[in-house]
């Protein structure tokens, strides 16, 4: 009775989920992106209770739920906490190799910012490397207004 199961060809449906998303950045994030776009400055938020400057900024402190965060500008330069160089290409990558992903502790911040590192020489990448933001010319209020970080 189940012979037909063996005999039936396996059909595969090639489809997709293509739904457009508009993510609202919110007042806090909008201030960060507008300042990045207009002044090439990176704004973190400071929790006085935890004595921590968060980058990217938070409206509330996720650790103590302090709702009274204050703005604090952090440097566009910092220290590489970790990194990796992808050895494969993928549609999701914003640029062609060679480039690295890195987590950068900007001077004045207590948390690391995840971003792209490029413009490095062979063997140059290492934890602790000093890197600096390279800004795009035409900035639109987006995380990739920082084109990438590169060694100082």
């Amino acid at each position, binding site marked *: 009775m189940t012979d037909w199961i063996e005999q039936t060809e396996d059909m595969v449906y090639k489809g997709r989920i293509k739904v457009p*998303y508009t993510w609202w950045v919110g007042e806090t994030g909008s201030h960060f992106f507008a300042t990045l776009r207009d002044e090439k400055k990176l704004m973190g938020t400071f929790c006085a209770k935890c004595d921590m400057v968060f980058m990217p900024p938070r409206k509330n402190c996720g650790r103590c739920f302090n*709702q009274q965060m204050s703005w604090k500008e952090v440097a566009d330069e910092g220290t590489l906490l970790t990194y990796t160089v992808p050895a494969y290409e993928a549609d999701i990558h914003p640029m062609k190799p060679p480039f690295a992903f890195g987590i950068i502790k900007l001077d004045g911040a207590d948390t690391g910012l995840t971003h792209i590192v490029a413009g490095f020489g062979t063997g140059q990448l290492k934890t602790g490397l000093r890197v600096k933001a390279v800004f795009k010319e035409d900035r639109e209020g987006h995380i990739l207004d920082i084109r990438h970080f590169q060694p100082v």
Partner: protein
Amino acid sequence: MGKRVAIVGTGQTKGSSGRKDVNGQEMINEAVMKALTDAELTRDDIDAVIIGNMDHFEGINYVDTWSVDGSGGYMKPIMKVTTGGTTGTTVAMAAYYHVASGLFDKVLAIGWEKNSESDTTGAIITAFEPIVDRPTFAGAVGGLALMANRYMHEFGATQEDAAYVAVRDRRHALKNPNAHLQIDITIEDVMKSPMIAWPIKYLDMCPRTDAACAVIFASEDYAEKICPRPAWILGIKNRHNFTFLGDCALGTLLSLEDAAEALYPRIGITEPLKQFDVMELYLPTSFAGVQWIEALRLCPKGGGPELVNSGATDMGGQCPINPSGGVLSSNPIGATGLLRVAEGALQIMGRADKRQVPDAKMALVSGFGGCNWSDLMALGAKKPD
């Protein structure tokens, strides 16, 4: 045996067609802070966090881990549960079982959605089987229209019968400051509104809403210490029957009938209309408001229009339905079920302000979603035996 469980605090953001001023985590945090304030607790008091939404409305995978800055889940147990439209009630049920298991005493349940961030119907269609169900399906509006049409065919109900519910729930919403839609409309307004999917007109349908809701559940060891009049969970049941849309009969909401039949005997309900003081039901269309109350045995099959038109379900009636204004006034999908639970709890706790049903002692709340699935939860002022 398990612990008895009560709701001791609730928080919700005001419904909006687009919360551009906050991102998702920030909106979640607003609701959480309100719930903590309501319960006079802090983040430190919370033993576990449960959160849910529908992934493809905001396009975020692993919402439980993504949301910890807002939810308070940092260095705490977190879990994501999700079942579509029933997500909010699913979250509440998960919070109940967390506490009832005896493993957690104070648990925070969160439901949220920012429907402004995508195309709601497009995203809902992805819930269905991609090869056979998706090509012709028109999302929740389409599915609910099919059900409304079949119901009218089987029982002779009219569009005007349904319109009464559209008017009733919107009128109730006028007294709920958190309701998204605050509109005073007439049956004529509903009948004249644009036909979006026959027989559903614009004003027969719920809105798309951005909002979050948070509810705190506590064990019997803590509930009365936290809250002077906690809302005890008397019983919960759910039925998520069916995988394909075409398997569901549409003249009645079978899953709700099934859930009610399972729930009522467990908590001594024989005459639901009399025994419950208030109901807060997941009614996403006006037609659901006449049809689905039949599945809850508030009236005989086909008797929905008569019961609703009698005024028995209005504020001041025998058993007011949807004092909050219901889903027809706010529909942040992942939060919608939890908002029903929160409203039921507010009524029992006596915290429903201008929309308070006097001396509400027993409340029934429901969730709806998926493949015409149903969730039920009964809340009461009296601690269960």
